[in-house]
């Protein structure tokens, strides 16, 4: 159907405008063509009123349902029609605007792109019948307006205005989303038509109605959310004209109309007239006192949409049809008025009423056209504006005569402020003094600054439309009643005409009142100004500012606290962890087993070892010097190894001893990078801080307690049997006598490979930290043993170290070869060989040149080891076998080299051996080099 084609035309239009990136002059023309095309496609679509429906997101139950009914059609046509006028106006305007701001013309491509996107979002919103779809366009329009309001982003005012608009309207959309989802859950569909038939009721429905209403009021800039709209006038004038008439602000009241069948009968709907009236009065009074043209118009928009909200709230034929008519008439009038203001400011460089006047002579055409549209806003015949007030007063009278008079008084205020606008601009004595700002140059040059025709023509066009509408009551009535019927989803009869009746009498009274108000303006102006001041001191705008400031301050304070006391503290993790475990403990302490376990004489050695271990662990805390610290750690490690030996885990014991030794060597090596004085100073400081120390002890206690509370009940609830038995049964299949080796090299080789890769990654990380390109870039300008820290090696050490190296290499080889069968494995062997090389290296004073070649090749050796170890993982899949398949096949005879049986597990072990060997040597080498350059670099 063609309505969807119109939407697609918008999307295509985006691409077309985007394509003008290199020819920015073509951008406005392209945009104009797009809006014209959209308009052309929309007209038949609205006539047809067809429905387009397609599957979209079954997971949410959302569908691509579009319907070009009279209501949606009205908004879509308005958006496209006014859009076309605005684009036409923007063509000369933006070029000048960018030139004045010293920005390149190509930026206008972005502007027109956003304008077309804005149009697309409004057309989509107008046509969408699915609420999720509708929400999409609703949000999209907020985003478009954000970027357009902030178009002059180098100006702080523009940035603040844009952010405020986004916060209010974007935040409001969240409420709408909730409402939509609630309705979807209640009614089982997101289709407005379906939901309208379901007949929703209940508390949830009431809540949803309120949320949707608030969202709509935020969008339509109604009190107290109106504050964003005056701020939004910092946007370039075409944007303001569009935003205030057919886009953005109109979306809010359109939403109310669209949702009318759902909202009808709710308390939110019942409150609408009063909410609308509040905006009417606030907006009108503020507009009466405003001095800047655009600000006056912005406040007027608040008031005018207040009338529409009022009308929707009153409901009935007059209310709903009247709302549609009001939307139409106001869109024409307000866009034209903004364009007028822009043309005036462009020509004179002034934007304040107090600095303007007497322009009627210089720009008679503009003045005349502006008079027509001002009359339209004020509801004077024979413009289309008359009908909007006729409908309004008729609907108000439906509420009762008193209400009618109240509304009529408000209508009078419209006349008063718009008279101020027009008379103040075009009549009276011209102001001669030169103003600065936009167009100031032209005024200063003394040229007879008339308004440029390109800027006047659109206003004339809109004024003509207003007059045509005024001459065509039947057509306007039909538009209104059809749109109203579409909103209510039932047929409403409504007729407008120039005829005598209560609405006309009220209108006459209103105009008289308005004229009187205008005439007496000097009397009440101080009062309005006082109200203005009170409003800005205590009103919602002040609240908004205070809220943002308060949030920022709170945020800063919390952040300061975090940085000062928490950020670098491990305790900040341990204490919450302790708290959580304490909560869990409190909940399940009674349900947990707390078994002390058997204690017999046989356990005595183990108990003793554990006792020693605990003591050693505690004494580490008391070590002041770094050397003592490392020795304490080593002692703990060796005691741990003893414990492992006692519980029958000899392989663990062996590995523990080797690892502890290597860590000790690495740590000691690391210390050498730091001069003794720095180490000592740190040790002294560490001992000195009393409060901190006590706090650390406390956190440490918490950590220990936490570990205890989790460990004890877990250890108290063992199960039998475990899967260890399964491994014992399977071990013979993989050519291994030791179950542990079978697990490491075969069954759970994935763990082993992962662990090896951890080492490789650690090595890469160390190289990244300390490497400076780890191949062959030894520190320069250094010779001799280790910068003279400590005495050089003696001959005896050299000789002994040679022996040690030889022995360790032999033992390592033995471990590797025999390991897979019995105790030990590639890891132990690699550690041993690596440590042997290190010792040898250290004994020779750490001179790189003189040590073994393996030192400079350590990284490649490690890498080769990793690749070798990974081979059993990576290669079998190439042959169609599962990764880590044991080769030769489990249970079959493996080829042997003496006692050494060759199979995939052995490949893993050998790879690990090489990797660990390379790791240890390379790590030490890196640390040594770091020690060397720390000496060079630091004072």
């Amino acid at each position, binding site marked *: 159907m063609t309505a969807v084609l119109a939407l697609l035309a918008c999307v295509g239009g985006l691409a077309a405008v985007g394509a003008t990136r290199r020819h920015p002059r073509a951008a406005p023309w392209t945009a104009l063509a797009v809006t014209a095309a959209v308009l052309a496609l929309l007209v038949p679509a609205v006539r047809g009123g067809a429905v387009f429906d397609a599957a979209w997101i079954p997971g949410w139950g959302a569908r691509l349902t579009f319907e070009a009914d009279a209501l949606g059609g009205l908004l879509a046509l308005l958006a496209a029609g006014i859009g076309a006028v605005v684009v036409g106006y923007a063509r000369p305007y933006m070029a000048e605007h960018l030139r004045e701001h010293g920005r390149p013309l190509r930026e206008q491509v972005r502007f027109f792109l956003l304008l077309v996107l804005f149009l697309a979002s409004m057309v989509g919103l107008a046509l969408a019948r699915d609420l999720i779809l509708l929400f999409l366009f609703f949000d999209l329009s907020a985003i478009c307006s954000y970027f357009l309001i902030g178009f002059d982003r180098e100006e702080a005012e523009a940035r603040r205005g844009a952010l405020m608009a986004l916060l209010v309207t974007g935040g409001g959309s969240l409420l709408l989303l909730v409402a939509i989802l609630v309705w979807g859950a209640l009614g089982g569909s997101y289709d407005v038509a379906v939901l309208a038939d379901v007949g929703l009721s209940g508390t949830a429905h009431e809540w949803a109605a309120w949320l949707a209403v608030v969202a709509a009021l935020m969008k339509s800039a109604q009190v107290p959310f109106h504050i964003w709209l005056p701020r939004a006038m910092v946007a370039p004038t075409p944007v303001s004209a569009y935003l205030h008439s057919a886009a953005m602000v109109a979306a809010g009241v359109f939403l109310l109309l669209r949702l009318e069948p759902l909202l009808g009968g709710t308390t939110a709907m019942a409150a609408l007239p009063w909410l609308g009236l509040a905006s009417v009065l606030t907006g009108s009074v503020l507009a009466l006192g405003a001095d800047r043209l655009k600000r006056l118009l912005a406040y007027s928009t608040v008031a005018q949409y207040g009338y529409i909200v009022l009308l929707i709230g009153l409901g009935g034929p007059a209310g709903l049809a009247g709302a549609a008519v009001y939307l139409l008439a106001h869109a024409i009038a307000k866009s034209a008025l903004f364009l007028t203001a822009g043309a005036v400011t462009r020509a004179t460089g002034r934007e304040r009423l107090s600095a303007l006047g007497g322009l009627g002579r210089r720009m008679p055409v503009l003045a005349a056209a502006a008079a027509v549209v001002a009359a339209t806003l004020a509801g004077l015949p024979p413009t289309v504006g008359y009908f909007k007030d006729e409908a309004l007063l008729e609907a108000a009278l439906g509420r009762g005569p008193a209400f009618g008079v109240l509304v009529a008084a408000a209508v009078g205020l419209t006349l008063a402020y718009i008279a101020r606008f027009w008379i103040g601009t075009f009549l009276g004595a011209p102001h001669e003094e030169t103003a600065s700002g936009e167009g100031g140059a032209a005024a200063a040059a003394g040229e007879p600054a008339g308004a440029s025709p390109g800027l006047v023509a659109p206003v004339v066009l809109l004024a003509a439309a207003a007059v045509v509408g005024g001459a065509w009551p039947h057509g306007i009535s039909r538009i209104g009643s059809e749109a109203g019927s579409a909103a209510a989803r039932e047929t409403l009869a409504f007729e407008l005409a120039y005829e005598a009746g209560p609405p006309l009498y009220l209108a006459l009274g209103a105009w008289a009142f308005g004229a009187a108000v205008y005439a007496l303006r000097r009397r009440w102006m101080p009062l309005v100004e006082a109200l203005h001041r009170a409003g800005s001191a205590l009103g919602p705008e002040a609240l908004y500012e205070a809220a943002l400031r308060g949030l920022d301050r709170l945020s800063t304070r919390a952040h300061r606290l975090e940085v000062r006391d928490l950020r670098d*503290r491990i305790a900040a993790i341990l204490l919450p962890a302790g708290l959580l475990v304490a909560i869990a403990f409190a909940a399940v302490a009674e349900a947990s087993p707390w078994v002390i376990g058997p204690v017999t004489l*046989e356990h005595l050695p*183990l108990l003793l070892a*554990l006792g020693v271990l605990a003591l050693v662990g505690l004494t580490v*805390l008391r070590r002041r010097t770094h050397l003592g610290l490392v020795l304490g*750690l080593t002692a703990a490690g060796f005691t741990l190894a003893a414990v492992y*030996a006692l519980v029958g885990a000899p392989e663990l014991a062996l590995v523990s001893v080797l*690892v502890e030794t290597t860590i000790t060597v690495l740590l000691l090596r690391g210390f050498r990078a730091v001069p003794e004085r720095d180490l000592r100073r740190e040790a002294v400081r560490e001992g000195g801080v009393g409060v901190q120390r006590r706090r650390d002890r406390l956190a440490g206690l918490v950590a220990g307690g936490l570990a205890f509370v989790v460990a004890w009940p877990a250890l108290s609830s063992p199960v039998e049997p475990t899967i260890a038995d399964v491994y014992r049964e399977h071990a013979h299949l993989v050519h291994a006598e030791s*179950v542990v080796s079978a697990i490491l090299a075969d069954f759970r080789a994935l763990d082993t490979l992962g662990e090896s890769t951890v080492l490789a990654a650690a090595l890469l990380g160390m190289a990244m930290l300390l490497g400076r390109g780890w191949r062959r870039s030894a520190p320069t300008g250094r010779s001799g043993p280790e910068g003279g820290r400590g005495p050089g090696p003696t001959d005896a050490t050299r000789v002994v170290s040679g022996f040690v190296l030889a022995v360790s290499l032999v033992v390592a080889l033995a471990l590797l070869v025999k390991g897979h069968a019995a105790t030990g494995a590639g890891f132990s062997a690699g550690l041993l060989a690596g440590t042997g090389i290190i010792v040898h290296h250290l004994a020779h004073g750490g001179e790189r040149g003189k040590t073994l070649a393996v030192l400079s090749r350590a990284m490649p050796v490690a890498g080769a080891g990793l690749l070798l170890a990974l081979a059993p993982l990576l290669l079998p899949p190439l042959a169609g076998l599962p990764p880590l398949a044991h080769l030769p096949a489990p249970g079959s005879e493996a080829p042997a080299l003496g006692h050494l049986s060759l199979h995939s597990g052995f490949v893993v072990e050998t790879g690990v051996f090489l990797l660990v060997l390379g790791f240890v040597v390379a790590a030490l080498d890196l640390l040594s080099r770091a020690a060397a350059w720390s000496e060079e670099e630091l004072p």
Partner: protein
Amino acid sequence: MILALAATVAVLFGAGATLMLSRDLFRMVTGAVLASNAVTLFLVAAGLSPLTAGLRPLTGAPETDPLVQALALTAIVITFGVASLLLALVIRAYTRHGTIDLDDLAEAERAEELDAGEAAGPGTTEREAGG
């Protein structure tokens, strides 16, 4: 026996944690190793059947749970890798800022950051919202 194991694990972990809380980067690394050792001990303890746990010297008596031994070996290797990398981090921090004290390090970096901030010029901290 169970209680003794749990208590030892707790003491070791507590000690490691306490060391990690200090400001001295080397002590922190040491603490990390100690805490990791504690959890390895816990892993081994988790494989001890309460009935068979007892004196098993290095000679060929049946092993404790072989699976747990394998897991503990893996865990030890990982600890080893982590400790090495941590050490490299600490050394790098020293060669850059000349301190092994966490607070001094934070201080030095903050000073550096301030320099950078001033270089970026005023207005970088301007608030966007509010007026």
